């Protein structure tokens, strides 16, 4: 029938109008962001060892790190140990392109994505977040999402499971998943 | 002087003034726009004279179509914004002939009608006009429709070079 498409078009828009709109009322209602949303980067200072991996991997060089060495006297040890102490850890968010390489590369989980995105400034200089401010963001880091039950267990889990099972068990940790795999949903 | 007289004078002044601007303006497109004003004023004159239908036909056909076509043609032939220098020919012959015709006719008509007072006629309704056209003037009306058709065909043939091109001739 000629004109069928035209009528269908009208029907689609009319139907959409009667449905609830999918707008999120953002400033009034907080957005429900998924975990690992790339908002701002938070720093857990205690985990940082000043290995400088993040600063070196950063594609646009927006991480600035200063540190000094400190001697820590460990009782019973032969001599005092040396430890890196962080003096400065700045991220310039006016340069950052949110690639997340620093977070990926950090061996000690000192850097985290947080979904917090409201840190616009009227002066671009204020976008340089120092380590206090970065540390402050830690409170907005959500707990990591639960593991996928069908996923492979993490290396740490696997190792722990293997140790718990004792040396006799071959490698049961690899099959730590449910014995009967449920049918994938169609 | 009645209200009608004042209106006639004012509208007449506007019509003649903008008419003069049409033929003297150096701006091509502005000429056309002055023509709109002039034709609108003439339509107002028709209204005062009680010819309502003619007035609105004037607006519909002249302002809505004829002037638009003229402006269209002006723009298609690359009218510049601002004054153009080579629009006019020497003024004297035109001034003598045009002024002679205009003032002569004006004098003639002024002398013929003097300052005679006429009653304002009752407005010519569409119904009475229709009765006239389709009663008294049916034949001219039909002839006119044929002429319109001929003009339509003529305009199409003229503006489409691929129609009527001779055999073997590049259109």
């Amino acid at each position: 029938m000629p004109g069928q498409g035209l009528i269908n078009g009208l029907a689609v828009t009319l139907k959409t109008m009667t449905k609830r709109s999918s707008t999120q009322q953002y400033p009034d209602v907080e957005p429900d962001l998924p975990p690992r949303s790339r908002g701002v980067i938070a720093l857990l200072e205690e985990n940082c060892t000043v290995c400088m991996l993040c600063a070196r991997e950063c594609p646009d060089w927006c991480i600035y790190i200063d540190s000094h060495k400190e001697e820590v006297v460990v009782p019973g040890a032969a001599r005092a140990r040396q430890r890196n102490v962080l003096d400065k850890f700045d991220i310039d968010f006016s340069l950052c392109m949110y690639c997340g390489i620093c977070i990926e590369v950090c061996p000690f989980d000192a850097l985290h994505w947080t979904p917090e995105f409201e840190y616009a400034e009227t002066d671009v200089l204020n976008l340089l977040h120092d380590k206090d401010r970065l540390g402050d963001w830690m409170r907005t880091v959500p707990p990591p999402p639960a593991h996928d039950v069908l996923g492979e267990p993490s290396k740490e889990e696997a190792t722990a499971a293997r140790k718990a099972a004792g040396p006799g068990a071959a490698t049961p940790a690899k099959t730590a998943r449910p014995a009967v795999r449920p049918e994938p949903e169609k | 002087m009645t209200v009608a007289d004042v209106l006639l004078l004012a509208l007449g002044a506007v019509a003649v003034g903008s008419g003069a601007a049409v033929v003297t303006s150096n701006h091509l497109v502005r000429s056309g726009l002055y023509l709109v004003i002039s034709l609108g004023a003439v339509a107002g004159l028709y209204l005062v004279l009680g010819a309502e239908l003619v007035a609105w036909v004037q607006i519909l056909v002249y302002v809505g179509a004829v002037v638009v076509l003229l402006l269209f043609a002006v723009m298609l032939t690359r009218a510049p914004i601002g004054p153009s220098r080579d629009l006019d020919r020497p003024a004297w012959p035109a001034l003598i002939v045009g002024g002679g015709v205009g003032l002569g006719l004006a004098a003639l008509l002024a002398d013929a009608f003097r300052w005679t007072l006429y009653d304002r006629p009752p407005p010519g309704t569409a119904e009475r006009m229709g009765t006239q056209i389709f009663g008294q003037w049916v034949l001219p009306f039909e002839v006119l429709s044929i002429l319109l058709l001929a003009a339509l065909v003529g305009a199409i043939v003229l503006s489409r070079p691929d129609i009527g091109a001779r055999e073997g001739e590049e259109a």
Partner: protein
Amino acid sequence: MHAVIPYVTGALLFGLGVYGVLRRRNAILVLMAVELMLNAVNLILVTADAAVRATLVGVQIESWAYPNGRPAHSGGVFALFVIVLAAAEVGVGLAIVLQYYRMRRAVHVDEVALHHDDEQVSR
């Protein structure tokens, strides 16, 4: 109502139209001047209609002269006819002008070669 006002307006408009036709070189401006003349004629027709109708009130008209009843608004009817003619004229006139422009890249009426001249036709 003094009929002389629109009459004189019409006459002056006609004069302006004649002036425009003779003075202008651009074909479209010439057409505009022609429109002015046609309007002047229309104005005179309508005025004459109104004036004559106002004068003839109560005058007995010979019935043989008008078999279809009293002639009223003939001026207006003629004006309508003229308007229609003007529309037709502009349609054809502009088609000619545009065609000419397409051939010569010019719209000046005094440059139209009236004799046959193949060399002048560019393209």
